[in-house]
């Protein structure tokens, strides 16, 4: 059979031709990660569009699982697109294990946990290197050329692209291999349940942190009562910094968990933002 990864004697895994095709597909689709980001899921929709053909192949015998994967992977996701290959490769290898596993024995929360846990560090490294260092250097040199109208500036792109493309290709390929090797082993050894718990814990921790740093609830209301400034933001900060983003997020969670329509939740939050701003309580 040619659709199985094989482990050669020196323990280097070889991708089957089937896998290679999938790898290439994924590589090209991953170029699209940055489009059409939303406020609520950021790159979640793009992730799904990117991975749909791959999931289709993985779950070819089981449309239920395919659609379940699509639904599950529409979650909030955001990282430096250049670095996404690494997460993508690992995620795909985990989906493959899920495909093989008998119903309800593979806890897919582990995939979510892994994605949430990796996206932050990947963004930390990726944004610093690509948006920070690499782009800055290239633009700097480029300006030097361009200022004197030197058309050689166009050749600069040949220097600029490789790091981007290499990390996309090898990052994805290597992490897929790694995943295929260890994750199926972990499943056999019964370690996967614990591993899933562990990745979910990472994920939940990061969500807690993201609520504190990503969700904004900027109060601007202040007034003077007999010469004493009364600053609403300070009142809440005194109780607990970030208490409003926390309450808002937990509120959304509770509503969604109770099965409330996400559209309504979303519209509710938008309405809240506009109303509080019109009332002069929040502001930008």
């Amino acid at each position, binding site marked *: 059979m040619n659709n199985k990864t094989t482990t050669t004697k020196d323990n280097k895994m070889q991708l089957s031709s089937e896998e290679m095709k999938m790898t290439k597909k994924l590589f090209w689709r991953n170029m699209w990660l940055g489009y059409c980001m*939303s406020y609520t899921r950021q790159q979640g929709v793009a992730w799904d569009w990117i991975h749909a053909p791959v999931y289709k192949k993985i779950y070819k015998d089981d449309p239920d699982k395919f659609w379940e994967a699509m639904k599950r992977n529409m979650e909030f996701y955001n990282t430096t697109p250049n670095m996404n290959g690494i997460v993508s490769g690992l995620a795909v290898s985990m989906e493959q294990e899920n495909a093989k596993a008998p119903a309800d024995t593979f806890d897919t929360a582990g995939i979510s946990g892994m994605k949430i846990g990796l996206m932050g560090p990947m*963004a930390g490294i990726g944004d610093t290197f690509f948006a920070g260092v690499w782009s800055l250097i290239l633009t700097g040199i480029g300006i030097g050329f*361009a200022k004197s109208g030197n058309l050689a500036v166009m050749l600069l792109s040949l220097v600029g692209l490789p790091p*981007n493309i290499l990390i996309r290709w090898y990052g994805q390929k290597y992490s897929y291999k790694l995943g295929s090797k260890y994750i199926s082993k972990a499943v056999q050894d019964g370690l996967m349940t614990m591993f899933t718990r562990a990745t979910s814990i990472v994920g939940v921790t990061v969500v807690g942190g993201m609520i504190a740093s990503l969700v904004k609830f*900027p109060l601007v209301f202040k007034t003077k009562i007999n010469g004493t400034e009364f600053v609403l933001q300070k009142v809440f900060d005194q109780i607990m*910094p970030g208490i409003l983003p926390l309450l808002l997020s937990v*509120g959304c969670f509770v509503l969604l968990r109770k099965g409330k329509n996400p559209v309504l939740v979303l519209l509710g939050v938008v309405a809240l*933002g506009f109303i509080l701003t019109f009332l002069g309580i929040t502001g930008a």
Partner: protein
Amino acid sequence: MLLYQAFIIGLYAAWGKWFGIYGSFGQVMPFFFTPVLAILLGKSPVDALMIDAAIALAFYGVMQIGAVMPQDTGFGGTLGLGFALILNQKPAIAVALAVPISMLAVVVWNLLKFWFTTNVEVFDKYIDERNMKKFNRLWWIQMAVYILTYFLLAFLAVLLGTHGIKAFVTSIPKPFLSGLTVAAGMLPAVGMGMLLKYVWNIEFLPFFIAGFLLGAYLKLPIMAISLFGVVFGLIMFFIDRHINDVKKSNQAQAVTAGPSTDDDEGDFFNE
């Protein structure tokens, strides 16, 4: 003539928006297409490069200072370059022309992103309906609208001229813009709620609280919080494994009355 120029600049701006995201290629290919625009407009590529360099330098500065209102300097720069070329202006003028457009582009982007955000639920619905066709269709509609919007924006900008743009920008009511920004800042809460829904288990509550406290009180960046998450995850993983070993060993005992061998667990975590 102006129509042709507007059309070309529109195309160029839309292309820039697309190429800036696709593979993040735009990020690492500065000035690559500047000469192309010049040629299409029948201007000197060398002059175009020099103007574009001046704009880039100016926006470097703007970014350093931290402008009062966020600007889409990429789009603004493109338009600035376009105006400078077709009006044969100095780079300094190009920068000045770019500013109102770059501000408008931010508002437009916010609106686009709001629309994408409401579409998320439609995508969800299509998945529930198991309709991949509609899913893809909506994706491409989004792409098309995205590209078209910027094309039109640039096209109209050239046609209207900078005065028209400025008038339009100042006519947008401020509370509306503030509300937009506030709502945009709040919306990630919905995404967080969604994430929690997927991974939730009451046993993870303490780690959720810990993550929040690390962010809210100790102001740690996401990188550090992720690593603390790894710390928690690994600790619980090893504790789980210990407990499980006892469980298995006792189950084995109950069957064979002999001690189990729990060292054949694979070498992944035993290196």
